[in-house]
């Protein structure tokens, strides 16, 4: 029984380590990417091509004075960022990042590259935690005793709730195809190809579902074009206006970790996870590493895709944003859901 515990701890350490390292990389990519899109240089002073810039930022944020404005609901004010970070980190334990069943490490079996191997409500767990994410924003907005942050908090939470609905319904199509909540099952269902060259990824038959899921993912992570709440021009900094130093840093990190999780989900659900057309992953460590590399490549592409979208599309107005959410996204998701149902009934899918 102890072996499992150690294996899980190791996996946990690996996952958290990877996530935390990707955050500075993403910061860098974000800054350099936006510069590239806006045809400007971007940070290049610190380290080669500015690679060390994120490290310097981190040090800056950590060393800043831990300022707590008065009139603030003290306990809640401090609690909010921690909730955000905790939720972001704990969603990843359900995400499988490689095909690793049957592997053994130091003599004990590791049940695949997934932290909680047989949690068979996989995706539901993610949605549950997504719901918790809303709390951090709302509390942050409320407790910082500032009209802008309050408004920002309310706006972002209502935005997240409406898009959460769209995201859930769009995912249902995928679940019907793979008839299981567990993400590794979903990936298994996407191996193989149609007519030789088209890979059996969910994105092709459920294109509408894929699009709605991606848009919803953007909204969930408050990424541009949906980052109205902390839009600089509008509400100063939205819900985390009053936050500074480490608290602001944790919000910032939570946002990027959510970004990674979302892109991982997109890859797993719609782009076949670590499968490639025509390539059968061999068992054993070599196959595992290969699947890890493929999965990482796909996630990286989508991370870039997020940054790319952020710096190209203009921001939505709040009522447009809500209207898009309720009147377009949800109907589209339902249509996809119906389409999958009919297709499966007719045996196409």
């Amino acid at each position, binding site marked *: 029984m102890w072996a499992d515990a150690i294996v899980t701890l190791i996996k946990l350490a690996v996952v958290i380590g990877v996530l935390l390292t990707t955050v500075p990389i993403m910061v860098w990519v974000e800054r350099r990417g936006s510069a590239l899109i806006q045809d400007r240089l971007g940070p290049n002073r610190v380290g080669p091509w500015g690679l060390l810039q994120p490290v310097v930022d981190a040090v800056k944020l950590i060393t800043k004075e831990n300022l707590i404005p008065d009139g603030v*609901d003290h306990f809640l004010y401090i609690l909010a960022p921690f909730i955000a970070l905790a939720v972001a980190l704990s969603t990843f334990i359900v995400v499988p990042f490689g095909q690793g069943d049957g592997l053994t490490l130091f003599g004990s079996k590791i049940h695949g590259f997934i932290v909680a191997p047989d949690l068979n409500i996989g995706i*539901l767990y993610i*949605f549950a935690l*997504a719901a918790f994410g809303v709390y951090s924003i*709302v*509390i942050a907005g409320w407790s910082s005793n500032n009209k802008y942050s309050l408004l920002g908090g309310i706006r972002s939470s*209502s935005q997240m709730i409406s898009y959460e609905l769209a995201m859930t319904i769009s995912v249902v199509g995928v679940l019907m195809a793979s008839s299981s909540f567990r993400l590794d099952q979903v990936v298994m269902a996407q191996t193989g190809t149609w007519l030789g060259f088209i890979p059996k990824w969910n994105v092709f038959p459920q294109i509408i579902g894929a699009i709605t899921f991606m848009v919803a993912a953007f909204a969930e992570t408050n990424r541009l074009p949906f980052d109205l709440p902390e839009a600089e021009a509008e509400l100063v900094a939205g819900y985390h206006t009053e936050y500074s130093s480490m608290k602001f840093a944790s919000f910032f990190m939570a946002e990027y970790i959510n970004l990674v999780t979302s892109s991982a989900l997109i890859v797993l659900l719609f782009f076949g996870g670590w499968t490639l057309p025509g390539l059968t992953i061999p068992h054993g460590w070599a196959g595992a590493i290969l699947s890890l590399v493929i999965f990482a490549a796909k996630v990286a592409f989508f991370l870039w895709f997020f940054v790319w979208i952020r710096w190209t599309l203009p921001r939505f107005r709040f009522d447009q944003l809500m209207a898009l959410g309720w009147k377009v996204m949800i109907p589209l998701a339902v249509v996809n859901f119906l389409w999958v149902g009919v297709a499966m009934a007719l045996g196409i899918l």
Partner: protein
Amino acid sequence: MVTYVFLAAAALAIVFGILAIAHRSPIINVLSLVVVFFALAAIYAVLGMDFLAAIQLIVYAGAVLVLFLFVIMLLNIRSVDRLGSGRRLQAILGALTSIAIGAAVVVAIATLTPAQGAVAPGSQGGTAFPIGRSLMTTHLLPFELVSLLLVAALVGALVLARKETR
């Protein structure tokens, strides 16, 4: 080991339950209730009802309490009366009655023959599948009725909360 999880969750639930009804600030109440629901979800999971735990979290903690938070923020209730303030007698009587009810229930439970529980059979691969099937077969009517109820509640809430435009 499972019993320890249960005991921890139970303690958590009771402590935050008291906090949920006693604290003066409604936000704290809602948050402590979230923690209680979290603890309950944990208990459900331990009892092998994982789909239920997920639903509890998503629907209750995720949606209903957020709604509460919304309304609290909308009405901007900073702080609220102390527990049992106003109408002293009423408070005492109320407390006594509820405790009496609790006692009666506890005594009734005591008379139950102790029995060892178990995970619902046939739910090895997660309870989602069997629940889904029975919802769509044996319990189809209640399922449809609940949907009707939700629509009604939706419309009701809209009508009530709408600003008097006329």
